[in-house]
């Protein structure tokens, strides 16, 4: 099924969670925050958040800033 992550379309297997997605991208879930279809998903809910076809996901992290 197709989802959109940070503006890019990606193919993932059905039944995956947000946690699976974050790990599959080589990211450390403890330093990432997500928006799923514009709703904030904090890290502790990644594992219980299932993904569906057409979902729009934003993955963000802190970077240097002033």
């Amino acid at each position, binding site marked *: 099924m197709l989802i959109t992550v940070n503006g890019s379309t990606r193919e993932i297997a059905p039944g995956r969670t947000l946690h699976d997605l974050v790990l599959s991208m080589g990211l450390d879930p403890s*330093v*990432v925050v997500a928006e799923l279809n514009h709703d904030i998903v904090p890290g502790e809910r990644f594992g219980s958040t299932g993904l569906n076809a057409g979902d729009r996901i934003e993955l963000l*992290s802190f970077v240097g*800033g*002033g």
Partner: protein
Amino acid sequence: MDHTDIFEIGGRRLSSRLFTGTGKYGDDARIPAVCDASGSQVITVALRRVDLDKAADNVMRHIPPHMTLLPNTSGARTADEAVRIARLARAMGCGDWIKIEVISDTRYLLPDGYETAKATETLAREGFTVLPYMNPDLYVARSLADAGAAAIMPLGAPIGTNRGLRTEEMIRILIEEMDLPIIVDAGIGTPSQACQAMEMGAAACLVNTAIATAADPVLMGRAFGRAVAAGREAWLAGPGAVATLARASSPLTGFLDGMGGAA
């Protein structure tokens, strides 16, 4: 300096009045040493989309655990965008401080006072400790105070310019007229400028570019820490009066016979 002078803000008791940033470092691994050398206890970060095409170093790895994190809303052009970024930053689980930056001007990166006040009101109601970046304008400052800001952060000069306290007179007015702490943010290029802001009665200074882009950021961080502390002490000490004519430092009596000099 002893620790009787504490800056209380957002439920924290800070012994250092220098806030630092994490942007523009040639090597983020210098950040812990800068925190240590400068004494800073508050540090800013920004929130961005993860770059999925290349693995990036995570800045959080370099921020010592005792630091209070002050995420900013850079990238926001409207109040709604700033609120969205602030909520995401809080969801990272690193506290509820937020520096509001709402900027649509790309040339001078000047903050939008109206949108900043709207975002401040929403986020203060949601329990954030809100520190808005602002133009040093008394009416904007009052609207930010009414909106629930914990402090206000007027710019000394445009972001990243190192041009110093170009807005000195306007900041002086804010310090005089506002009950909220005034934290001078942006444009401070040298320790003497930070010291001057503190001598004027600023509550704190936020310095990023001047430290991060110095040839030796750790040494510059230490210099800024000392300058901010010195300026604060001078403010607390109360400077003596300024005079036009010379005033002798010694009595003008008791000279030797035949001498009539002064001073």
